[in-house]
């Protein structure tokens, strides 16, 4: 029993890791304050779930989930050349609202608030990941791959270009850089991984409904990125683990689950507020959020 619970927690941590590492690429490295990350996550989940329910093999569903999210990430990047700062953040919020309301209202496709049940567990070349332990191994491998890919991007000259755009976009332009292309790429890649996370989530829980993808769900993830530190991948990992475990502690104190849910949200939001007020660089970050 206890080990089943730990496996479940580890899987959740992996999903959060993919989400927050990819968000750090767009928010931390290229400085695009993207509050619509959950929309990418949801697009990945719904795309892959619908395909999986239609009998498409898992790997294709996973890829399609990533690609659909990636494409929408590119679309969301289009206005970044003109709109900056808090208005851009609002555009991403609006984007999140739209995707959420599509999930809720496109009844014929998404079954609206009823959600999509019976999503098959992953199966790769005949090997099924029916039990949670094998699923954990699958998602751990993918999470590691995502970590190394994002780290490699961050360390490459392209990653330095992203940081330059974040620090001073005009100065980067004056050095002849196509800053729009850089931001569009980073947002698209970031969205791709969020889509992958969504596809994995859908195939793990085997049921999705719009409530997992509302705007408010961005709070834990943005908290992780800010608490761990912008442009700090080890910080993100540490923060993901801590933030996933803290609310679990409440479970042992013995609160009923009807109180546990909202309490967890309050804890995330409070931690985020305290960090924003007292330690805007996060714990392992060198970059101040602006």
């Amino acid at each position: 029993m206890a080990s089943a619970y730990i496996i479940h927690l580890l899987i959740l941590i992996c999903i959060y890791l993919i989400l927050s590492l990819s968000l750090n690429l767009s928010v931390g490295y290229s400085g695009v304050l993207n509050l619509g990350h959950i929309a990418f996550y949801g697009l990945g989940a719904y795309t892959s779930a619908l395909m999986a329910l239609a009998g498409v093999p898992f790997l294709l569903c996973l890829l399609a989930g990533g690609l659909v999210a990636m494409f929408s990430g590119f679309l969301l990047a289009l206005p970044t050349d003109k709109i900056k700062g808090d208005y851009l953040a609002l555009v991403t919020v609006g984007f999140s609202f739209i995707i959420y309301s599509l999930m809720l209202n496109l009844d014929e496709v998404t079954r609206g608030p009823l959600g999509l049940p019976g999503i098959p567990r992953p199966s790769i070349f005949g090997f099924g990941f029916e039990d949670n332990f094998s699923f954990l191994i699958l998602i751990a491998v993918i999470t590691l791959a995502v970590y190394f890919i994002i780290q490699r991007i961050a360390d490459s000259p392209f990653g330095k270009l992203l940081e330059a755009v974040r620090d001073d976009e005009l100065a980067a332009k004056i050095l002849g850089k196509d800053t729009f292309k850089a931001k569009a790429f980073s947002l698209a890649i970031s969205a791709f991984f969020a889509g992958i996370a969504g596809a994995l989530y859908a195939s793990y829980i085997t049921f999705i409904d719009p409530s997992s993808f509302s705007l408010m769900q961005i709070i834990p993830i943005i908290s992780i990125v800010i608490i761990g530190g912008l442009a700090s991948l080890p910080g993100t990992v540490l923060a993901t683990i801590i933030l996933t475990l803290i609310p679990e502690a409440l479970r042992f104190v013995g609160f009923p689950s009807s109180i546990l849910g909202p309490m967890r949200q309050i804890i995330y939001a409070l931690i985020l507020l305290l960090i924003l007020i007292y330690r805007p660089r996060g714990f392992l970050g060198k970059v101040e959020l602006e």
Partner: protein
Amino acid sequence: MFYQILANGLIAGAIYALVAAGFSLIYSTTKFVHFAHGGVIALSAYMLYLFYSLLGINFWLSAILAIISGVIIGVGIDYLVYQPLRKRRASPVIILISSVSVLLILESLNLMLFGADVKSINFLDIGSGWSIGPVIITSLQIFIVISSFVLLVTLFLFMKYSKIGKAMRAVADNKNVAEIVGISAERIYTWSFAIGSLIAGFAAVLISLEQNIEPTMGTALIIKGFTASIIGGVESVAGGVLGAFLLGLTENFGIWWLPSSYKDAIAFVILFAFLLLRPEGILGVKKNQK
């Protein structure tokens, strides 16, 4: 049919206008997006439920108590969250994130304290309808439209003629100049939150007469109020009110052709279009690029 839709649109617009007026008022002086305004309305509505339905206090007294709680919550948020952030010169983006966190906290509080099931205030009878020509309106709706009209006119007169209203407009126009002539911007911010939240409390009372009270109503309302402000021009209260009626009408005329579940999607698409194409809104002035 046309006149009925017109009437429905105007009633929806009146409710949105109440939300947008307080939100725009706060934005106009402080220049940041106070998403938690929706949470203030929701919590005030629950306070009304607490005083009137649970404690059995006289309705009018309960309404006054609910409005006072709204003011206390709004000013409290400013004092506890926004003021420290302003002190460390946090950017509007940071304040935006923090306001979403506060909204999440307020919603979770509602959920924790009052539970997930919807509540209703059965003070005025919704059933009895009046027919004015081809249009059927309930007495409650007439009450709502008239009260919001009176409130908005009072607000307009207050902003135009009272000393504090004038000072608020001065700060909204140019904070630095206002401070040079001896107006304390911080004091005016507090006033903005007090008056904005007073309107929020008022809105809460009117809305909870017509709609059910539920934990997530704050998010739903602020999205509409925010959309209205963006349409009309977020810098001015008049713009917000104008946008609110336009939004109410567009939504109701929109579902003439589209399934009614697309009502929200219509609002989001309009919001997105305005954010991308005309972020300064209909009444807004394009800022000169420097």
